[in-house]
């Protein structure tokens, strides 16, 4: 006979626990099943979150419109003027008088193609070159592309929140004609292509 109450209590508890696992073995397996289902759910949540993060980051496109507009300006400046001298095709002589060539084709001369993949695209680009004398008097201008985009520049000026509007880059440089007369040339380049660059 065991007289010590503490020992008796421990023994009784042990026997009770053992008999519980002997008579109800399914309860333990059930708990394990619930935990494994829980882990599976957590695993799915984490995997889903990782997929969401990756698709969020890589799903949004890089906005390269400003870069594209700058590249177009470089291309145009390079064909209008080389090493500081204006393209000879920009001028025509009428009655021994030198004039700007109104038929100067910016696309052909500068090897530019404004066609895009989009079927409904009205015109994704606009280019304008304005010629001034040194007193800032406008002498001549040539332009190509969708002139409606020009209005976007005035709205979006200095505002970052209008990211769905066209991007405009405006730059100016100096060049000389064959008679060593200096001109200030202002080139405006506008790129829309919102669908490809903004989500």
């Amino acid at each position: 006979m065991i007289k010590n109450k503490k020992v008796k209590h421990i023994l009784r508890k042990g026997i009770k626990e053992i008999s519980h696992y002997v008579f109800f073995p399914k309860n333990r397996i059930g708990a394990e099943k619930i935990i494994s289902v829980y882990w599976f759910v957590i695993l799915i949540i984490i995997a889903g979150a990782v997929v969401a993060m990756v698709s969020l980051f890589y799903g949004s496109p890089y906005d390269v419109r400003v870069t594209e507009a700058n590249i177009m300006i470089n291309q145009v400046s390079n064909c209008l003027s080389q090493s500081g001298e204006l393209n000879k095709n920009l001028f025509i002589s009428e009655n021994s008088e030198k004039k700007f060539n109104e038929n100067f084709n910016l696309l052909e001369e500068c090897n530019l193609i404004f066609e895009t993949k989009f079927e409904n695209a009205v015109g994704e680009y606009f280019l304008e070159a304005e010629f001034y004398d040194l007193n800032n008097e406008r002498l001549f201008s040539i332009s190509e592309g969708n002139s409606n985009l020009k209005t976007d520049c005035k709205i979006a000026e200095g505002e970052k929140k209008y990211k769905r509007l066209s991007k405009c880059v405006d730059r100016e440089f100096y060049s000389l004609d064959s008679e060593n007369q200096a001109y200030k040339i202002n080139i405006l380049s506008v790129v829309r292509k919102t669908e490809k660059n903004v989500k």
Partner: protein
Amino acid sequence: MLNKIFNKRGQASESMTWIAATLIIIVLLGISIYAASLLSKLKIIDYETEERTQDIIMEESLFSYFSIKDSDVQSKIFKSLEKMNQEEKFYEDFNSKFQQIKFNLEKNEK
């Protein structure tokens, strides 16, 4: 009777731990998704701030500046170019390019 009550408390605290752990995981994932969406909005390639080694527009102006023979016109253009430089309209260092082109032209003349 007391034993049963204590057992239930133990079970409750264990399930609370699981719930808290799950919530922490979900909150952390939520923060990560929000951070990813914020980062995706910053995907803009800024032509001006990218390190550039060449500015064709500026070089064109400098070439025409050095080709001009009339000193009045030359100073007028130089003032305008300096103003543009102060307004940070060039993508490349104006002074170093000015010196470089000047040096090359002088070298060619010799």
